[in-house]
């Protein structure tokens, strides 16, 4: 159980803090790993570059992915994860500000499992995170390894 982590891909420190706070308030106790751009996200997933030495036992149970990211954007991160046989089944939830139709369509097109818009109202945000955690960490049966 210890190896099951939530990978939060978020470049905005405020959003990171608020997301962590929302997760805590939702009583989600899983370890959260925060990466701050697309390159780092892929490095972590593929255990390379700055995350080459991370324990093999750490597995992302769910990946919370922002779309607008420095270096490599969220959609490209999504595409590469889905293209790799070792990571292609990882549940990925897009957590973003955008409700542009094209972003939503492309997000699902690239294989996102879910698309959630971050509400401005923090109360609503906590609700969203709570439901998200409940679904992906408790209710959802992951692929057997």
């Amino acid at each position: 159980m210890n190896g099951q982590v939530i990978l939060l891909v978020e470049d905005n420190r405020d959003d990171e803090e608020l997301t962590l706070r929302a997760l805590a308030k939702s009583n989600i106790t899983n370890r959260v790993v925060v990466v701050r751009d697309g390159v780092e996200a892929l490095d972590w997933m593929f255990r390379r570059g700055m995350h080459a030495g991370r324990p093999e036992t750490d597995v992302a149970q769910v990946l919370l992915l922002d779309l607008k990211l420095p270096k490599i954007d969220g959609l490209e991160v999504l595409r590469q994860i889905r293209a790799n046989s070792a990571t292609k089944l990882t549940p990925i939830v897009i957590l973003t500000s955008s409700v542009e139709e094209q972003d939503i369509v492309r997000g699902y097109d690239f294989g996102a499992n879910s698309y959630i818009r971050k509400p401005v109202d923090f109360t609503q945000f906590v609700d969203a995170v709570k439901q998200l955690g409940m679904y992906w960490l408790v209710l959802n049966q992951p692929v057997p390894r």
Partner: protein
Amino acid sequence: MTDRLRVALTEVSTAASAFSESTTDYDQLLAAITRSCARALKSTCSLSLFDDDEVMLTPVAGYDDDPKVLAALEVMLQKPRHYERSLVGQLSPASGNAFVPEVDLAVMRERLAPDALEFLEIANIRGFIAITMRVRGETLGVLTVLQHDRTRPPLDDFDHEIATHLANLAGFALSNARLFRRAQAELVGRQSAEQIATDLRASEALLDSVLENIPAMVFMKDAKELSFVRFNRAGEELLGVPRTQLIGKSDFDFFPRDEAEFFVAKDRETLRANEVVDIPEEPIRTAAGERWLHTRKVPITDEHGKPRYLLGISHDITRQKRDMELLEAARDVAEAANKELEAFSYSVAHDLRAPLRAIDGFSQALLEDCAEALGETGRDYCKRVRASAQRMAALIDDLLMLSRVTRTIARSQNVDLCELFRTSVATLQASEPGRTVETEATGMLMALGDPKLLAIMFDNLVGNAWKFTARSPSPKISLRMTKVNGECVYCISDNGVGFDMAYSHKLFGVFNRLHTDAEFPGTGVGLATVHRIVTRHGGRAWAEGEVGEGARFYFTLGDTKGR
């Protein structure tokens, strides 16, 4: 004077006057000749005339006082005969005058061809005189006198002399008549030639005035030298050169070498292919600077199909071209602006909301973590900060919606407006399950429009009605359609708080509100969005209402003409 001579003289003078009277009527003259001759010599008379080649003789008239003989003669003398096979041609080719008072068939058999002999036999000819008519060096024909009446004395030298005189007279009369005919024909010909010339001048004048006044440059070049032979006024004005300076010159005298070479190459191409060549765009340097022409070059050939002239017709398309370029530039600018707007909207959607989330989220964190330290006033301030952040988020969302409405490419589909109405109501009902609102929109109300945009419009209009009936004792919202002058006018009405018509003009503007946020929350963007959606459908939107008496929002979807 003997009686015979007197009779003969009378006949001859009668004939002479008859001939001269008949100068203008050729057919009558031919008849008069044979009749006079037959009567003077109491015999049958026939007249044959040469064709133009003076070889073939064609019978043209015959006469006998006895109609039976005349009929028989006409049958026998139908066919043209070669002169050399005629009686006179065979018997006296040199003198052209044959006189045989008594036909001796045995002698004739020696001297005549079988068909001529056969004629003498069958017609039972006793004697004959055949005289070739020669006048002014022209051989006109043969006058033949045939005697078959054996009860009368045979033809004698006197008869021969009279026949010769009559033939001479007839020859002159014929010659005169022919001259007259020829003169007349020439006269007619000259007249028609004059007519043709007049017609030609008239059509040339018409062509000239067309060419002169047509608002396109028209020119004609000689096919060989490619020098100008004709030039019209529009051409002079376009080039800024009078035609007197152009005629006889070539393109090389007026245009830079590369341009002239292009023109000449196109000219040669037109003439070689012998078909019309269309040059949609060609630049030309004129006294007034560079112009663009749309030119058509037409080969004009002579009757043998050889190129004779090159006709050119050029339209000055400089302005169209400039307008087109301006239009394209404007479109590029508009497209760029639209792209920029899209990028801007995207960035608004994404980047402006992030700080608002932080403001709201950390205010809430303060309220939760530092409630004691803040005190009551502090907590109130934190709540106000949060409310403002959320209101700004709502404003941003509505503005994004408004801009999306503008950017969306509208599609035209059949849409059931009642269905849209019910969907909007259902969404509102779900957000406020406690409210009871009576709604009226049954059945179907089909309209042509963009389903997504119309759904946004209904969310706004029904949402407004829902909001402003919040304090009504028995709220009611309905959708109706009426036809006004053939146009469908839709109306969403409610029995809510209504509004003062004095402000109705402000209803559809952005950020214009008739109520305070405390009375009824809102951003003031909704009706602006409605207005834009309706406008994009080619329709109109307006509202009626009264304070405390509800509101009616009308709209049309531009369905009047051919939709």
